[in-house]
């Protein structure tokens, strides 16, 4: 299959993610208001404790990152499960482009739509609280952001096949993974506060390293980083490759099982 046809399939599936999100006004509440409310609560806690202003910045960055985690869990990991029940999955499976570009399209659409939301959360936080957000190195910042996205959506793609096979349990898994990750990944505080080893264990979730790396680039002298930022970049690159490979293998496995057993892709 030519790259052009793969790109067509990717953009085709990305389209409803980007355009559809704008047509659903409830996203303003769920994806913007709720994270901002979480941010507000922690900002007031830190201010009441007399914490330095950079803590406001930590919290705003964490609030923006929540949008990505929620998107990955609800709109990537669970997506094949929803697609199956809508009857889309079997159409996707029998499309000549195959499932890989469709899954990549889902990820790309999710990244674009969520990046916009994250930018809005950051802008709202900065405007409301005059948070000191500056970037010491834009190439490093963008590199960490891009690698973090690839690793995170790679994890989401891996989960999408896994959750499909788990069936209804997928819903519980999404709920189960939501709040604990807010804690373990240090969304509202430097993850180093959990200790090096807990932080490293939490780094299996790419958002932990990405968030800590971004904070190190934004507060180079004052942020207590988990590990040196370049190590975090290397870790993210490893996770990006690892999860992408794992996702593709899982997808092939899911397709094979689906054709053998017939229960995964059909609305029976």
């Amino acid at each position: 299959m030519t790259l052009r046809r793969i790109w067509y399939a990717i953009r085709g599936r990305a389209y409803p993610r980007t355009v559809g999100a704008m047509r659903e006004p409830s996203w303003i509440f769920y994806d913007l208001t709720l994270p901002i409310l979480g941010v507000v609560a922690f900002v007031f806690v830190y201010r009441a404790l007399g914490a330095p202003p950079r803590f406001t910045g930590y919290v705003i960055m964490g609030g923006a990152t929540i949008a990505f985690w929620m998107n990955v869990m609800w709109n990537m990991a669970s997506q094949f499960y929803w697609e199956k029940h809508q009857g889309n999955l079997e159409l996707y499976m029998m499309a000549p482009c195959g499932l890989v570009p469709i899954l990549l399209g889902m990820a790309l659409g999710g990244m674009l739509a969520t990046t916009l939301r994250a930018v809005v959360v950051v802008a709202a936080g900065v405007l409301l609280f005059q948070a000191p957000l500056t970037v010491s190195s834009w190439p490093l910042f963008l590199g960490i952001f891009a690698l973090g996205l690839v690793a995170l959506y790679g994890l989401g793609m891996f989960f999408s096949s896994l959750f499909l096979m788990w069936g209804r349990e997928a819903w519980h898994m999404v709920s189960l993974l939501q709040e604990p990750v807010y804690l373990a990944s240090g969304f509202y505080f430097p993850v180093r506060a959990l200790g090096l080893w807990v932080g490293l264990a939490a780094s299996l979730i790419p958002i932990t390293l990405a968030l800590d790396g971004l904070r190190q680039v934004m507060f180079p002298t004052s942020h207590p980083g988990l590990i040196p930022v370049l190590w975090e970049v290397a870790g993210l690159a490893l996770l990006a490759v690892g999860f992408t490979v794992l996702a593709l293998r899982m997808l092939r496995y899911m397709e094979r099982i689906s054709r053998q057993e017939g229960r995964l892709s059909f609305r029976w």
Partner: protein
Amino acid sequence: MSSRPSIQTEDLARTFRVLRSKHYPAGEPVVALDGVTLEIPRGELFGLLGPNGAGKTTLIKILVTLLLPTSGRATVEGFDVRTQAHQVRSRISMVSGGEHSGYGLLTVREQLWMFSQFYGLATGEALRRIDELLGVVGLFEERHRKVQQLSTGMRQKMNLVRGLLSDPQVFFLDEPTLGLDVGAARDIRAYIKRWIADRPGRTILLTTHYMSEAEELCDRVAIIHKGKIIACDAPAHLKRAAAGGSYFVLDTERLDGADFLREIPGVARVDAAERDHLTELRLHLAEDGAIAGVVAALTQQGRRILQLQKVEPSLEDAFVTLVGRRMEEADEVRTS
């Protein structure tokens, strides 16, 4: 045009492992297809007729590469569905009845464009085909409407356009008019006929459990029951294969039950349907003369005969002869 069949199956079988449940207390394997052998030449509109659970959908799922057969072999356009799925997929398309695919927030045109991208159509060409096909099925004016705002009939027409966008060599239609109102179903049937007439060499495999649909559309029909093909021929030939004897349709004042008619000598089968304060009886008699006994029995019951007509055997009659019960009865047996 190649003489190679468009669809070919040899001794195709599919068994499902079923977990222990109320319906399957023993948890034994369920045989969905049992040695199906078919050959469908290019250019044919072929029907698969059978009650719910007969194996129609399983056969289609295997042919469109969504399901592997347990044994046997199937090819579509010469490609093995088991080992050459990619080649098969680029030549086929499928539309199912009651399909709710896609995303409600997209407009009709956007949704169809999205699906066209999975088949590698450039945007300009895709939009040209979309507008043309929407015009043909009478949905052009709705092209900017959100999918979630469409009626069931409109939605199924859109699905039909989705299936045709890639201009498939083989088009699979799985109960395409299921749940549609009479008008929408008629429009869809009309377009299916026109599509294949305009494109010699294309093939349609249609599953249905509407006898009239199979009779109206199909060049040949296979009757599938309990996973086996029990007859396969042109509808006219199948009708001739219906049991000998005579067929009558008789309208009478409403009857409380038609069992007494089954006791009359020469009456092979009676099917009664209630409508508009009358009972319509479809009678299969051993010979014409047996109708006298039926008329006499109704008169004795004090029921006026409103209409009596001798008719040709229908596909339904052929189905009854082959399966032993009417389609609705077979559906009910499965449901219960």
